[in-house]
């Protein structure tokens, strides 16, 4: 979980060698994260474990999306649909063979292929045109499931056969472990990937395509690759959500999900894995908090609607006050400014 986006390119060049030495390898973050999650799942009550698991599943997709959008500058409003692809593939594979690893592999494979197709189209498009295409992808999920309802069972969706968790592990604990295994592996691989040449290419393409091309970066290939990587993350995340819900249906992957994902990474701080984590936590915590607040107020109109308003206000305020996202807010910066 390194800080993958340099703040000022000029400064960064000089301090890079120096900084590189100081930053520990991402694997240590992953290990620390794993230990923390293991400890937490031990102490938390079941529902908190379930929420923790949900954070993990969200983190899997936001991590991939922040690489695509933050580091490569491609805006995708269709990641909810990619998650649905992963979830449905997982469900079909699982109901057929009842082998968890195989189903995860199938979900990854199919979403990767979908990512290649969309990525190839996306690499030709820029800005709002890309947003428009991915938006149409996001909207097409219910249509696909109803048109091919023999396979996908229309709006009803599919329920998923799952083996009970091994040993005496509680279901929610097991879900949290699965989700965080997925999330941490994803984050680790992404962190390693963006530290290397691939990460430099991503940023070069984002900042100036022409310059990147002159510098020998294959622009289209980099863009397609970025899309494929983030699609694979979305697929895995979708499969994790399928495990969490023990069912899939188009209603679980509405357009708002895709939009919420974009917001999460932006609020958290674009291009940073830490920001993606922040965003994932917010996706789980904000609706829950707003619902509690709404319930306390006792007004039915407030419930649900309050969550929307809070999410919206946070989003707008963060964008206006701290465009770098929550993860960019540092005590030290605030102090420095004060002095």
């Amino acid at each position, binding site marked *: 979980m390194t800080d993958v986006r340099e703040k000022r390119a000029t400064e960064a060049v000089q301090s890079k060698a120096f900084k590189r030495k100081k930053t520990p390898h991402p694997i240590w973050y992953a290990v620390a994260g794993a230990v923390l999650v293991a400890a937490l799942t031990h102490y938390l009550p079941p529902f908190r474990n379930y929420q923790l698991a949900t954070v993990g599943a969200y983190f899997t997709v936001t991590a991939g999306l922040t690489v695509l959008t933050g580091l490569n500058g491609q805006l995708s409003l269709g990641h909810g649909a990619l998650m649905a692809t992963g979830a449905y593939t997982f469900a079909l594979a699982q109901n057929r063979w009842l082998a968890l690893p195989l189903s995860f592999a199938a979900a990854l494979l199919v979403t990767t292929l979908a990512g290649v197709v969309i990525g190839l189209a996306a690499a030709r498009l820029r800005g709002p*045109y890309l947003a428009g295409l991915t938006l149409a992808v996001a909207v097409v999920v219910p249509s696909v499931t109803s048109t091919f309802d023999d396979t996908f069972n229309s709006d009803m969706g599919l329920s998923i056969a799952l083996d009970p968790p091994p040993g005496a592990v509680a279901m929610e604990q097991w879900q949290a472990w699965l989700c965080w295994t997925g999330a941490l592996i994803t984050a680790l691989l992404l962190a390693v990937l963006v530290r290397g040449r691939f990460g430099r290419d991503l940023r070069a393409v984002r900042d100036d395509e022409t310059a990147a091309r002159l510098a020998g970066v294959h622009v289209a290939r980099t863009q397609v690759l970025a899309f494929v990587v983030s699609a694979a993350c979305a697929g895995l995340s979708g499969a994790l959500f399928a495990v969490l819900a023990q069912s899939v249906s188009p209603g679980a992957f509405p357009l708002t999900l895709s939009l919420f994902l974009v917001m999460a990474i932006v609020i958290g701080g674009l291009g940073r894995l830490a920001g993606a984590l922040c965003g994932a936590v917010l996706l789980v915590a904000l609706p829950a908090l707003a619902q509690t607040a709404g319930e306390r107020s006792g007004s039915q109109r407030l419930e649900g609607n309050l969550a*929307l308003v809070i999410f919206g206000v946070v989003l707008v305020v963060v964008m206006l006050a701290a465009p770098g996202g929550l993860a960019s807010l540092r005590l030290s910066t605030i102090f420095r400014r004060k002095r």
Partner: protein
Amino acid sequence: MDRFFYLTFDGLSRGAVYAAFALALVLIWRAARIVNFAQGAMAVAAVYVAYSVTGATGSYWLGFAAALVFGLLLGIAVEKAVMRFVDHSSPLNGVVVALGLVLITQGVLGMVYGNEYRPVTTPFRRDAFDVGGIALLSRYDVFVFAAVGAVVVALTLLFTRTAAGLRMRAAAFAPDVSRLLGVPVGGMLTLGWALAAAVGSLAGMLVVPTELGLHPTAMDVVFVSAFTAAVVGGLDSPIGAVTGGLIVGLLLSYVSGYLGATVAPMAVLLLLVVVLLGRPGGLFSSSKARLA
């Protein structure tokens, strides 16, 4: 053949609304290089205002006027209070702020009006004239065509014949040069937002009566279709927006009529893919590779 005519007119009358809505998107895009994802929510807010005014006064036209005025003011407010302060270094920022506005608007409308569908009245009857046994157009459809047509003409005149229109175009295409030449770039931007929001409100007023009713999320689906229309036509081109709107309306109507309603969103996606891969800047793009 009856059926073909019927579907054609049904598609055109919906397409006209998409066209108006796409026009609103194009207006803001030309003025500020932002795709206003909050357009749908803002339009719904305006329709709610019309609903309240019509409810209080009993007059459709007072509500109609209130919606347009409110849209105008809302556009100004959004630009002055929020969009002006957005960091435009990345095109993403504007999009995200707009999404935030969508959430706020829908939440507030839900709190004020509740989450039920409200019926909205139409100024004209919606049953169709029969021409040779085929039900073609209703008075209301004619009203829709007339309203959208009037907007297109008015905007064309504004941009080609008036000084304000020229200034707006200049401010959008070369803000720095325009500023040097004494064009109030900020003011032109506000004007663009106000106009766009008013046109969006008009589209909302036209489309809501043909849907399930008035609801905070009533324009979500319409927005997707209209956005598709604007992208198909090319975001820079008002002609493109109108053409795109009609194309999308017809396509949706034919596909749901002949193949089934479930297939329609896939047809829209296919249309987008074909158009964008053929002409990545939309059908009517003038410049070759405008990057964001």
